[in-house]
C-alpha cells in the first residue's frame, strides 16, 4: 500500500466516523445556519442591506470554528483515553496521516457550512456579492480553520476525554461572542471591544469583512500577521505537548 493511499484511507474513515455521529453533525451544521437565519436575516433592521452581508461573514466564521475545534479536541482526547492513539502510533501509519485526516474532516465540514450559509444568504438574505467576493470569502474561511484546528489539537492533547467537551464549549462560545460574531463588535462595551483583539476569530472575521469593505479599518497586514503568529505559537505548543506525551509513553 503506497503512502498516499494511507492518507486517503485515514481521511476517508475519519470522515465516515464523524459522519456517523449525528450528535456531532447536526449541531455543527444546524447551529450556524439557524443562528444566521434568525439574527442575520429575520431580525435584520428594516431597510438594511448590509446587515445580512455583515452577519454572513461573522456567522460563517462562527460556523467553521466549531467542527475544527470540536473534532480535534474531542476525538483526540477520547482516542488518547481509549488507547487508540497509542495503537495508531504503533501501526505503520505516519502520525501526520492521523492529523491531516482530522484536518480534512474539518475542511469538509467547513465547506458544507459555507455552502449552506451562502445559499441561505443568497436566497433569504438577498445578499448580492461579486464572484470574486463570494469565492474569496469561501477560500478565506477554509484557510481560516487552521488556527482553530490547532486550538482543538492542543486541547485534545492536554485534556481528558471527559473534560474536553466542556472546555471547548467554554472557549468556543465566549470567543465567538467577544469577537463580534453574534453581534457586530461595535455594539459591545468599549473594554470588550479592546479585548476582541485577543481572539483569532476577531481577526479572521475582520479579514472577511475587509473583502466587503465592512471592516473596522485596521490594516490587512495587521490581521494577517496576528493570525500567522497565533498559528505559529499554537503549532509550537502542540509540538511541545506532543513530545512530552509520546516521551512519557516510550
Amino acid at each position, binding site marked *: 500500500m503506497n503512502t498516499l493511499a494511507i492518507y486517503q484511507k485515514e481521511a476517508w474513515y475519519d470522515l465516515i466516523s464523524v459522519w456517523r455521529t449525528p450528535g456531532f453533525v447536526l449541531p455543527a451544521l444546524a447551529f450556524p445556519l439557524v443562528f444566521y437565519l434568525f439574527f442575520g436575516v429575520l431580525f435584520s433592521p428594516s*431597510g*438594511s*442591506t*448590509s*446587515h445580512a*452581508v*455583515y452577519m454572513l461573514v461573522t456567522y460563517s466564521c462562527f460556523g467553521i470554528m466549531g467542527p475544527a475545534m470540536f473534532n480535534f479536541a474531542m476525538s483526540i482526547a477520547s482516542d488518547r483515553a481509549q488507547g487508540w492513539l497509542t495503537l495508531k502510533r504503533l501501526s505503520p501509519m505516519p502520525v501526520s496521516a492521523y492529523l491531516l485526516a482530522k484536518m480534512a474532516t474539518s475542511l469538509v465540514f467547513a*465547506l458544507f457550512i459555507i*455552502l449552506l450559509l*451562502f*445559499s441561505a444568504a*443568497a436566497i433569504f438574505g438577498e*445578499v*448580492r*456579492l*461579486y*464572484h470574486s*467576493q*463570494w*469565492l474569496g470569502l*469561501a477560500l478565506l474561511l477554509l484557510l481560516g480553520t487552521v488556527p482553530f484546528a490547532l486550538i482543538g489539537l492542543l486541547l485534545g492533547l492536554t485534556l481528558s476525554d471527559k473534560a474536553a467537551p466542556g472546555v471547548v464549549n467554554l472557549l468556543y462560545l465566549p470567543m465567538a461572542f467577544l469577537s463580534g460574531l453574534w453581534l*457586530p463588535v*461595535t*455594539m459591545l462595551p*468599549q473594554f470588550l471591544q479592546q479585548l476582541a483583539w485577543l481572539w483569532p476569530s476577531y481577526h479572521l472575521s475582520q479579514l472577511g469583512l475587509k473583502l*466587503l*469593505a*465592512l*471592516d*473596522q*479599518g*485596521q*490594516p490587512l497586514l495587521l490581521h494577517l500577521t496576528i493570525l500567522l503568529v497565533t498559528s505559529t505559537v499554537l503549532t509550537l505548543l502542540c509540538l511541545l505537548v506532543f513530545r512530552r506525551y509520546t516521551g512519557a509513553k516510550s
Partner: protein
Amino acid sequence: MKSLVFTAIAGVLVLFFLLLPQPDATSQLKPVATAVSDATSNSFVLGPVKVFDGQQWRKERYVEVRDGRVQQLHPDKPDSTLPLIDGHNQWLMPGLIDAHVHAWGDALQQALNFGVTTALDMFGDQQFLVAQKAARAGTERTDQADMYGAGVLVTAPKGHGTQYGIEIPVIERPEQASDFVAARLAEGSDYIKIVYTSAKALRHFRPSIDLATLQAVIDAAKAQGLLAVVHIADLPSAEEAIAAGADGLVHSFFSEPVSDELLQLMASGQRFVIPTMTVMEGMLANQINEELLLQDPPALLTAAAISSLQQRFGNAQIPPERYQLLAGNTKKMAEAGILLLAGSDAPNPNTAHGVSLLVEMVLLQRAGVPNLQVLQSATSAPAKAFGLQEVGYLRPGYKADMLLLSQDPMAELTTLLTPAAIWKNGWLHQPELPAESTAVTAGLIADFNTGLTARSGGFAASSDSMMQGKSSAEIRVQQGALQVTGTTRPGFAYPWAGVAWQTADSMETGSNFSDISHIKFTIRGTPGQYRLDAFSAGSFMPVSHRFAVTADWQTIELPLSAFSGLNTEAVSMLLWNGPEGEFQFELDDIELR
C-alpha cells in the same frame, strides 16, 4: 469511478459559486469603497475614520455628508446609496477656524489650501466682507475659506488702525458710540473690534480712545446685538476692557504676567482670548517659522507667503526672553479655564494666511495647553465664542468642512501641516500649486534706447499718492534715458516718489534673484540722498538702501546683500526714490550682475 465522483463534486462546487447572485447595476450595495480623490459630489459617506467633532473624540466611525452638510455620524457603515469614501481609519476633524486675520486679495484661498475653512477678520475692507457673505451662507463648491468680519475697527483719531494709508472713520467721544456701532452694523460688520490702550499702560504707541468711550462702544454693541472684542497690548488695558464687558481679547500681552483678578474675571464671565502668539513670536523669539516651515517649505506656500513669514518687525529692542512671559500667560489662561482661540493675525510680519494658524496651534501646545484644548481652540472654541452656527463642529447640520489627517493629532500636532484631504462644503479641495517665480539671469534689464521696454516686467511711476499721501511722480523716456520728475512731501507715514520696476508680470510671484549679486545703474539728477527700495513678493514693506546722486552721470553698483531681509527667491519690485522736495533725475543702463 472515484475520480468521476471527485470531478462531479468539483463540478457541483463550481456551479454553486457560479449560481451565487451578483449585485446588479441598480443594487444598493456598494461594497467597494472609492478613494478619497473622488471630487464629483458633496454627498458621500466617509469611513472608517476616527472622528474629533470639534469638542471631543467620538465613537462613531462613519460620517454621512449630504449636500455639503454633516447628516449623521454612524458607528458602522450605514446603508446608503451614497458613494463610500475609504477613510483608511485615519483621523478626521472639523476644518480649522483662524480667529484673527486681516483678509484681502487671495487670503481666503491661501487659508483653505492649509485647511483653514473659516477665517474671522479683525479689521478690513467692509466691501470685501460683504462680498463673502453669500458664499459662506451656502455649500456651493468653492476654493476659499468662509469669512466673518469686524469691518472697520473702532479707534481714536490717529490711533492704531489709521496708519495703513486707508481713510477710516474714527471716534472721539462716548456720545458717538451708538451711531458708530450702528454704522458698522449697516456696513455688514459681524462683530465690533475696538482698539484700546489704558491710560495706566506703561507704553503708548498711538492715541487711544478713553475708558468712557470704550465702555460706551461695548454697551452700544451689546444693545445692538453685536459681540465686542478688544485689541489690547498690556495688562491694565486688558483688565479695563474685560471689566467694561468686552466679550473677548483679540491679543494676549507680554508686558507683565497676567493678574489673578483678570484670570478670575475672564473665567467666571466666560470671556475668551485670542493670544496670537505667532505674530508676537515674530516680535520676540523669531525662531518658529524657520523651525517648522522654512527649512523645507510646504509646496503650497507661495513666494509671497514665504516673504511674509520671513518679514521682521522693525522694533528689535524688545528682549526675546519676553516670549517666555507670553507663553506663561497663555498657560495660566488655559489653566484658569478661559476659552482660548487660535488666531494667526496674518498677514502681519512673521505670519502668512492659513499656514500660520498651524504654527499658532503648535505654539499653544508648546506653551503647555493640553492637546485636546489646542484642537478645540481652532474648531469649537471660536464657534462658541463668536456664535457661529454652521462651522467648528462635525455634528448633524454643520457644514462638512473637514480635514483628514494621516497621523493622530493628539500625538503629533504637526500632521496638520500635511493633511491627507481637505473638504470645504463637502467638496474635496484640490489646491493648485503656486506658480514658480522665474529666474532672472545676469545682464542688461533696460537701456531706454528704444522706449520704456524692459527685458522682463515693466516700468511705471510710483508715489505715495496711491495711499492718499502728498507726493507725486511722472516718468518719460528722453534721449535714451529714463527721466523722472516728482516731489516727495510728508503726508503718508512712509513718503515715496520715483520709478518702479516690476520684475515680472505677476507681483504675487516676483522673480528669482538667486543668481544675481549686484544691481548696477547710471544716474544723475537733483543732488541729494536717493533710496532704492526692494520688495519681496507679497510684502508691502521694502528693504532700502540709500545712495548719493550728483548732477553728473555716475555708475552705482549696489550688492544685493545690502538689502538684508529681502527674499531673493522672489523679488517683486525695485523702486528708485528721489530725494525730499522737488526733484528730477535720469536713470539709464540698468543691469543685473
